[in-house]
């Protein structure tokens, strides 16, 4: 594709650079219509409508909102987003630690989405406004290179699910400079799916599992979830057709009462996952209990650096003391935030009285409005579920 070609051909879903016959349209409107028709048809046969289908990935929500996919679903299908935004579930005390480090003169590098996430008293963006050195990086490798270039301590505030933790692990294992360390707020998603599936108010009929996470861990990992909760799980990709196809499969299983795992993203996901990535992930991190913001205390769902990497663990290298930051009490508005319910699938952003009023991406109240993977932000940016 030439750089000056003023068309949207590339980005509408073809794999780039290939010759004609492998340029596949995963955004093709007519196929989408056909899949939507299929969904409508299955929707008529569902045993206990509406069926609630939960996906657990911000990229899923992005695609759903960006392409207006909910407008294609029948009333008998309810598609909700669970705790799929790693930014949103980052706990305030974790942000406080990053802020405290930044205020102590350490260079804190992190993903752009993390800047506006509020800690107890302030966000990293606030700290930066007040003169702290906070940098946005594209990923762990860029943070390592920053540490190589700078003559001072660089802490990478590492957030994200297992897909993102694997690159962090790789960066740690690739012998980064001494002045580089990690403040891990990485999370592991399967235990959260367990917890949400068991929440009393949450009535999930099936999971559309996140393809990216499954790339690393393999879809075999969802067998336990199927067993424990009696739900079908379908692994789906992120293009509109991937999602619609995943929904077709998932709704078929719901209609047919099949408690099974199915891979609707075979071009990327296998049963065993990416062995190398998985190895590095678990070599560097171990799963420990921890609080997910707005959701719950979840066993084995936080990823902590193992002791042998203490030299690159910011919590070991520094005496982090965010206590001064904790004195401020949560604002009135924050107490009204229903992010937790939204992530548990029991509420939509439009159910929140602050949505689009007091709470906007420019002045977010809850974490769901901060990240481009947060449900509230996505609904706000793409206009939510419009009556069109």
């Amino acid at each position, binding site marked *: *594709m*030439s750089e000056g070609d*003023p*068309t*949207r*051909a*590339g*980005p*509408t879903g*073809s*794999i*780039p650079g*290939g010759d*004609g016959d*492998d*340029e*596949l*349209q995963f955004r*093709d409107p*007519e*196929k989408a219509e*056909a*899949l939507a*028709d*299929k969904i409508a048809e299955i929707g008529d046969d569902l045993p206990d409508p509406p069926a609630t289908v939960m996906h657990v990935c911000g*990229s899923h929500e992005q695609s759903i909102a960006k392409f207006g996919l909910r407008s294609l679903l029948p009333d008998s299908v309810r598609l909700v987003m669970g705790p*799929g935004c790693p930014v949103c579930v980052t706990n305030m005390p974790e942000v406080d630690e990053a802020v405290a480090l930044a205020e102590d003169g350490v260079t804190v590098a992190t*993903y752009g989405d993390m800047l506006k996430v509020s800690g107890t008293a302030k966000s990293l963006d606030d700290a930066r406004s007040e003169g702290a050195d906070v940098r946005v990086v*594209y*990923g*762990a*490798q860029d943070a390592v290179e920053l540490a190589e270039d700078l003559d001072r301590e660089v802490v990478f505030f590492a957030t*994200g699910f297992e*897909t*993102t933790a*694997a*690159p962090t692990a*790789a960066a740690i294992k*690739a012998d980064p400079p001494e002045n580089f360390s990690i403040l891990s707020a990485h999370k592991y998603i399967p235990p959260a799916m367990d917890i949400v599936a068991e929440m009393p108010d949450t009535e999930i009929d099936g999971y559309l599992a*996140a*393809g*990216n996470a499954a*790339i*690393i861990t393999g879809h075999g990992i969802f067998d336990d979830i199927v067993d424990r909760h009696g739900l079908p799980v379908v692994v789906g*990709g*992120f293009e509109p*057709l991937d999602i619609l*196809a995943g929904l*077709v499969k998932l709704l078929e299983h719901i209609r047919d009462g099949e408690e099974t795992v199915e891979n*609707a*993203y*075979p*071009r*990327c996901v296998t049963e065993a996952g*990416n*062995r*190398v990535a998985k190895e*590095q992930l678990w070599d560097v991190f171990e799963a420990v209990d921890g609080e997910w913001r707005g959701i719950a205390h979840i066993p084995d769902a936080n990823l902590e650096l193992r002791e042998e990497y203490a030299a690159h663990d910011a919590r070991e290298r520094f005496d982090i003391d965010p206590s001064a930051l904790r004195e401020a009490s949560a604002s009135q508005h924050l107490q009204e935030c229903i992010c937790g319910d939204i992530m548990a699938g029991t509420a939509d952003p439009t159910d929140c009285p602050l949505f689009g009023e007091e709470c906007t991406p420019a002045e977010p109240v809850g974490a769901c409005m901060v990240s*481009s*993977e947060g449900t509230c932000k996505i609904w706000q940016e793409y206009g939510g579920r419009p009556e069109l």
Partner: protein
Amino acid sequence: MCLGVPGEIQEIDGHEAVADFWGVERRVRLDIVGDAVEEGDYILNHVGYAIRKIPESEVEQTMELFETMLDADPEDMLTDDVMEELEANSGAPAAGAQEEGDDDDLLEELGIDV
């Protein structure tokens, strides 16, 4: 930040490669891609790391999956003819905006009655 973006490997240098993402090039690390990767291979990039090689065969498998899903239902409007038509279209993607004919065509396309 959760984004996975497919790209084509252009050049490999140890653990690092340059990949083309719809015409835009960027470095990606190969530390955890898990498969042998060569120039010309497609990978899925996540935060600057290739997390998966995407074999062409599996791309076709996806396509087949969609077809299976639709074929499975004989009542479905999607016939082989339609499939063929779709595939034919995919060669000249979305260039419509550049190719309008005369005034009436444009207004018609936009649904404007004059």
